[in-house]
């Protein structure tokens, strides 16, 4: 049983298919990059993973659990923009990651103090301690996205969904964010799905790179068929995953 399974997913809007026959198995701790042309349905697939939408057919399950009908704490998300709350300070944004799950959406007294200490630890880790008391509007784009990732992680999701998280950043900041994300994953392994336009980014960060495209194409009616996963690359070790195979399984060496 895989960690995340998608079985025979179809999604159509107003009878027009967007996705068709999407099947996917993801192991816990894998980083999945999702690439494809604009309008190929990769963001739709992410919304299905998030349970923001329901597929027309098929089901997505985490560890064989029930189908999710709305977004919840199992699935953390970072969007390209608007992922943090502008009316809360940077630290309160992190605290919200825990506090929103309570009846009134806020902590008081000792719990608040403890949550603030944990938030400060997260801020330390994502390098935003010096701006803890400011509002997100004063942060740069890269800092806002780091805050959004930190906030999502504060809720301890089982899978983390990133929808073009670095799309609005300049190239230098983008590379910093890649390093940041890589470090974060090295510290605590997590299952990540990332939609991106940037192929290089997808291969650099992902363990697997999924390509969404339309396998069937009607030139008279381009909208007649939906997209599916056409390639599933193993992107580990720079895209050459098996060159260390003999080191990992010395018994195979005998066959040489």
């Amino acid at each position: 049983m895989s960690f995340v399974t998608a079985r025979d997913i179809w999604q159509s809007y107003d009878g027009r298919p967007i996705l068709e026959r999407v099947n996917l198995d993801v192991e816990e701790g894998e980083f999945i990059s999702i690439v494809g042309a604009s309008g190929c349905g990769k963001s739709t697939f992410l919304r299905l993973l998030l349970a923001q939408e329901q597929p027309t057919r098929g089901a997505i399950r985490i560890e064989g659990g029930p189908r999710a009908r709305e977004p919840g704490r199992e699935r953390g998300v970072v969007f390209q923009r608007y992922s943090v709350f502008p009316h809360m300070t940077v630290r309160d944004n992190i605290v919200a990651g825990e506090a929103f799950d309570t009846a009134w959406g806020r902590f008081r007294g000792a719990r608040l103090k403890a949550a603030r200490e944990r938030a400060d630890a997260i801020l330390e880790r994502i390098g935003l301690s010096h701006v803890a008391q400011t509002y997100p509007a004063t942060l740069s784009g890269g800092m806002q996205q780091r805050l959004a990732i930190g906030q999502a992680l504060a809720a301890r999701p089982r899978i983390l969904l990133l929808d073009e998280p670095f799309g609005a950043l300049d190239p230098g900041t983008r590379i910093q964010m890649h390093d940041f994300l890589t470090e974060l994953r090295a510290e605590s392994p997590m299952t990540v799905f990332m939609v991106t336009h940037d192929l290089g980014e997808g291969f650099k960060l992902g363990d697997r790179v999924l390509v969404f495209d339309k396998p069937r194409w009607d030139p008279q009616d381009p909208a007649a068929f939906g997209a599916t996963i056409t390639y599933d690359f193993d992107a580990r070790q720079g895209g050459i995953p098996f060159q260390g195979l003999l080191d990992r399984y010395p018994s195979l060496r005998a066959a040489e």
Partner: protein
Amino acid sequence: MRLINRVPSRPTALLLAALPFAAILAAYAIGSEIRLAANPADKLLPALDTIRATAVRLFTEADKRSGEILLWQDTFASLRRLFLGVGIAAALSLSIGMAVGLLPYARKSLTGFVAVLSMVPPLALLPILFIVFGLGEVSKVVLIVIGITPFMTRDLSQRVLDIPVEQIVKAQTLGASSFVIALRVALPQVLPRLISAVRLSLGSAWLFLIAAEAVAADVGLGYRIFLVRRYLAMDIILTYVIWITLLAFLIDWVLKRISERAFPWMGAGL
């Protein structure tokens, strides 16, 4: 240099801001001078000195019969009606606006209703209000509420809908219930809009208040203006008009300051 790129310096800007006021004052003074020269008993444009003297008398001297200073009585009565009306309208429009903005069921059932309701001319309802609620305080407050609530509700529900869907989804992934999303995500972001909606509605609120007072009241700023109209007491009317303008301006200024203080995260967005 192009006209659109010319910016006045600070002293010039102050001068320019004062200019329209000075111009209207001068025009009045000249007009009044001309009329009074022709007929010293003219009541239409009393001299500025007469108005000042009347203003001092109105603000300080008690009425002979009741022993009260009428202007302050009128002010308190009117402000009480205004604040009650605007307060109730703000509370109503905030709750309906949030419900319409957040809940698809409320949106479907209330959007059309509020849109139609906002087309009803409130002053046309005034006779009904007098019949139903009597000539007392209630009908005046209700007129203000009916007059400004639909507009504020539409404004606020639109503001809630303007909150990016990403934020709402994000809050859900953090485990927030509908109630927590309303309380912690939507409400704080709508409150500054509530204050601007109140500021925009105050003009109409004053209009409805004075209209209601003019028709039936025994105290109030609007009542007094329409009462002394019978004696052509322009000096009193003008004093009251300036006083009402000043009050409205002060309330607006206070609301603006509150909004700047209370919502620092809005930055330049106000």
